[in-house]
């Protein structure tokens, strides 16, 4: 594969599926600097993965695998320290959207962020409508194990929605 072909595929993937990467970034990284750092790690991994893609899975499944695997390992890395005075001079790749975010979505992300790294992955896949079979393949665990985890996560999120209503947000 030539570098030009690699770049073309990378651009296509990014333009069509960037929202998927944004979701992973938002679920695994809290501050703007961390989100930018994680996004960089993911796109580098995606770039390297282009020549390895054989079409055995869909592009979405492939990108989710890479993004989640990168995010999980990134979350276990030694945290980089970002001194506040350097923030202004840094050129970010990610810029937060100017469109007002739905506050219920912000709440949902906060709840997802409170889950452990594995449960966060399962929640993202679940909310994006992946089947148990697809999730089992992405995670490398059995479908029954996926089912057990999903039941627990669903219960947990639904019970948290009580508090959301209670605070009248």
């Amino acid at each position: 594969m030539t570098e030009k072909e690699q770049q073309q595929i990378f651009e296509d993937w990014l333009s069509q599926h960037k929202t998927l990467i944004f979701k992973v970034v938002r679920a695994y990284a809290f501050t703007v600097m961390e989100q930018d750092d994680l996004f960089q790690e993911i796109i580098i991994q995606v770039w390297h993965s282009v020549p390895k893609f054989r079409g055995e899975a869909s592009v979405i499944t492939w990108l989710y695998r890479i993004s989640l695997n990168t995010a999980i390992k990134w979350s276990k890395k030694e945290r980089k320290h970002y001194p506040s005075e350097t923030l202004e001079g840094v050129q970010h790749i990610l810029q937060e959207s100017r469109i007002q975010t739905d506050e219920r979505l912000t709440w949902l992300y906060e709840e997802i962020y409170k889950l452990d790294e594995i449960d966060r992955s399962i929640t993202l896949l679940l909310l994006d409508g992946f089947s148990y079979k697809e999730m089992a393949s992405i995670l490398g665990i059995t479908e029954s194990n996926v089912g057990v985890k999903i039941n627990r996560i669903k219960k947990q999120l639904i019970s948290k929605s009580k508090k959301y209503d209670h605070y009248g947000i």
Partner: protein
Amino acid sequence: MIIMEFEELKKIWDVQTNQPLYAINEKTMYNLILSKKKQAHHITNISELLIIIVYIITGSFVLGMNLFNQSSNISMYLLSAWMLGSALFILVNRIRRIKGDKQFDRSMSGDLDHAISVATYQVRISQIMLWNILPIGVLTSLGLWEGGKPIWIALIALLFFALSYYAGGWEHNLYKRKKRELEVLKKKLDSDG
């Protein structure tokens, strides 16, 4: 009190399909890719190569100096042999590691298994390198003493190796902690519930 059903949570989630959370600064992104695409993927690669190169250069230098000076300093010959042997040992382990890299699948579980295998390798190599400081330190100090150097030079060399042992221990503990964290993640993934 209203309890949201999961379908409602999904509707909230789907809002972002039409309203992406971020915009991408494409110029900065491509600059980053250009700068990083040729970079080595793993720190393991760099540290392994560094150890091999340092041992080969130092071992060859010590051997060359001994041969050039027609020295009969046994400790220095032993030291160069030990260093070149260590380089060979790391090289063989590196080849084994690279061959083993291909046996993991691309799932999250497979990726974690791979990360744990790399971490286990790092823990093992850093432990061996830590122990390796002992014979190298002793042989160097003996060689200096045998070569007629003042005792304080041999003591300084010993102190240097003691400091190296301390720094190596710190690095070794870092790898051990990283390995433990990955094992906890894998356990969470495999557990029912």
